[in-house]
């Protein structure tokens, strides 16, 4: 009688099963078993069950090891008579083709640049921390209703010679939704706490829109923590804000409505795609997100008026500052940039809306990089340009 070799394959328990994990072998190599005897424990997403021997014989080889996950039908072991030569067993394994072959093991995902949740007092903030440790770190503060994705084209570009940190403000993105009083003072306090938590003594602050107002407030309340300011269409420098935008940006529920709202943010309306709309809607839908924005909107710009006047902060020259604005900004008018102290360079971009860091990414990045490398030098260069 010829020797029979039986393939032991990953069994299918239940019709939803496509793969299983070999939890453990219950039979040892060399052990002889009867049909129906338990050979191994198999774990699926739903159940753990025992794998029973499909035939009688000796367990000659455990091909799969405990802990391995394999598709249904993959070879996990070999059963044969005691006197079947080893070479035959090896040849059998070599020639065995599972119906659904086990694919190459997935490479573990590189997790550099993955945002992490950081506890800051009573807040949990979503923080993306990239770059080397050498220069003075740079912190990016996004605007009202935004999140770290606003810095998609900014963060990594600035990370060549310093640590660059982007984070979701309270009430935004994946951060917790408690925004306290919702005032600039409160939010600047959170940024100050975040810097301490991250053990950053002093940082260059880049602030956009509401984040610009937060940056200015941080400079006012915690001047020691601020090395310089780069402000993109910042709040706090004028009286008005587009009230229709604020309420629609918070309340819109459909993609169509939200798309129209987001188009107000940019000059080139084609920039607003399905994914961008979807991402904003996803953020809004989180429990507490809309309430948080309502609180901030009410505290910072009720009825289209800006509560905080932060021009005095700039008057003192407490930190080197430069400002960017889009000429076609529909949210905070470029006229907010006029009448500022002479020493503050203001770059106004043509054909640009409220998001210069996206619409003029290269220009903005270059200007910020040069500025933070040596703020004083950058300022005197700017002055020379202005007088020329």
């Amino acid at each position, binding site marked *: 009688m010829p020797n029979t070799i039986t393939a032991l*394959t990953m*069994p*299918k*328990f*239940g*019709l939803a*099963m496509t793969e299983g994990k070999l939890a453990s072998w219950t039979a040892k190599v060399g052990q002889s078993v009867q049909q129906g005897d338990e050979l191994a424990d198999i774990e699926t997403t739903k*159940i*753990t*069950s025992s*794998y*029973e021997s*499909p035939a009688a014989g000796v367990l000659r080889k455990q091909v799969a090891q405990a802990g391995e996950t394999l598709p*249904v*039908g993959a070879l996990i072991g070999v059963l044969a008579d005691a006197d079947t030569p080893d070479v035959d067993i090896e040849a059998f394994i070599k020639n065995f083709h599972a*119906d659904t072959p086990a694919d190459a093991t997935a490479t573990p995902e590189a997790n550099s640049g993955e945002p992490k949740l950081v506890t800051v007092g009573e807040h949990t903030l979503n923080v993306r921390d990239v770059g080397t440790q050498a220069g003075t770190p740079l912190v990016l503060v996004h605007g009202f209703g935004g999140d770290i994705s606003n810095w998609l084209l900014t963060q990594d570009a600035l990370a060549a010679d310093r640590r660059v940190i982007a984070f979701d403000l309270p009430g935004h993105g994946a951060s917790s939704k408690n925004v306290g009083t919702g005032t600039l003072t409160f939010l600047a306090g959170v940024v100050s706490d975040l810097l301490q938590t991250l053990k950053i003594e002093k940082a260059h602050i880049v602030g956009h829109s509401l984040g610009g107002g937060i940056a200015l407030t941080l400079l006012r309340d915690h001047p020691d923590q601020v090395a310089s300011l780069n402000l993109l269409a910042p709040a706090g420098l004028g009286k008005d804000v587009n009230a229709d935008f604020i309420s629609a940006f918070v309340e819109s529920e459909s993609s169509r409505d939200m798309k129209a709202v987001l188009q107000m943010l940019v000059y080139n309306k084609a920039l607003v795609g399905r994914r961008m709309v979807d991402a904003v809607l996803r953020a809004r839908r989180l429990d507490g997100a809309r309430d948080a924005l309502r609180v901030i909107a009410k505290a910072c710009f009720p009825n289209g008026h800006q509560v905080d006047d932060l021009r005095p902060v700039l008057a003192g020259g407490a930190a080197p500052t430069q400002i960017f604005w889009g000429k076609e900004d529909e949210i905070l008018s470029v006229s907010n940039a006029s009448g500022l102290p002479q020493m503050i360079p203001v770059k106004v971009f043509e054909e640009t809306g409220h998001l210069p860091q996206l619409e003029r990414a290269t220009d903005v990045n270059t200007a910020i990089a040069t500025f933070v490398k040596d703020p004083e030098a950058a300022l005197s260069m700017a002055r020379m340009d202005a007088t020329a």
Partner: protein
Amino acid sequence: MSVQISREALLRAYRSMRTIRVFEERLHVEFATGEIPGFVHLYCGEEASAVGVCANLTDNDTIASTHRGHGHCIAKGVEVGGMMAEIYGRHTGVCRGKGGSMHIADLSKGMLGANGIVGGGPPLICGAALSHKTLKDNGVAVAFFGDGASNEGTTLESMNLASVWHLPAVFVLEDNGYGEATGAAYACAGTQKDRAAGFGLPYFACAGDDFFEVYETARNAIDHARSGKGPVMLHVQLSRWYGHFEGDAMTYRKAGEVAAQKKDHDCLKKFRARAVAENLLPEGDMDEIDAAVADEVESAVVTAKQAPWPQDKDLMADVYARY
């Protein structure tokens, strides 16, 4: 209790039970290879119920089965090769591959179908019983249903209807103590005996691990219905040996419960023991049946695996529509 059953009938019954056992155990192994699509519910451990009841029936009588239907099919004479091919989804299957394990039917054998809907059978059986009664063909209609199905409105309404219409209907409650993972101890209020009484049905009960007991009790129950005295309930106590469906690890059952059932309540072992002790059948005959059944099931599997798949044109066969 003396046995009133012919030698041929006994041999047939043994063969049926053995066929069910081997068929189901083989499916247990084959399902694990991933080759069998869909749901499979095995009847192992319950063989004496289907066979003990159906040994009192002819092709002229009707049965309705459940999702756990292979045993009822085999006991009612549905051909094993056609069943296996059906379970493999082949064109040669009894339903041309369109039904699968849960929908095996063969009306030529009075087998009104396994059923994917719990409680789907009892109303149908009222209708079948009405046919038998109206056509005066002396047939009875038998609804197999589980303890779980005993809580469906359709089941309870059917017992009432059968009673109101005085139908030749037999309600065979196959009580294996579980509906899926939930125990009958939790899910079934009152007693089944009282439920039968509530509808005016005579109540018959027996243990399901002993073919002889099921056969005798079923005969009395079926005779009652056949003789025009109205519907009855037959309550069979059983245990299922595998999970609810293939893939169920049965964590809700005490360790050793199934092993004990297999050891002490195996209907085939009991049958053999009694057949030999009382000299009803020679061991050799049963050995021959065992060998023949093993061959039959083996060849059913081999044939099914090689059988042709349905063709594209079969998709639109047996419907009235062309779209």
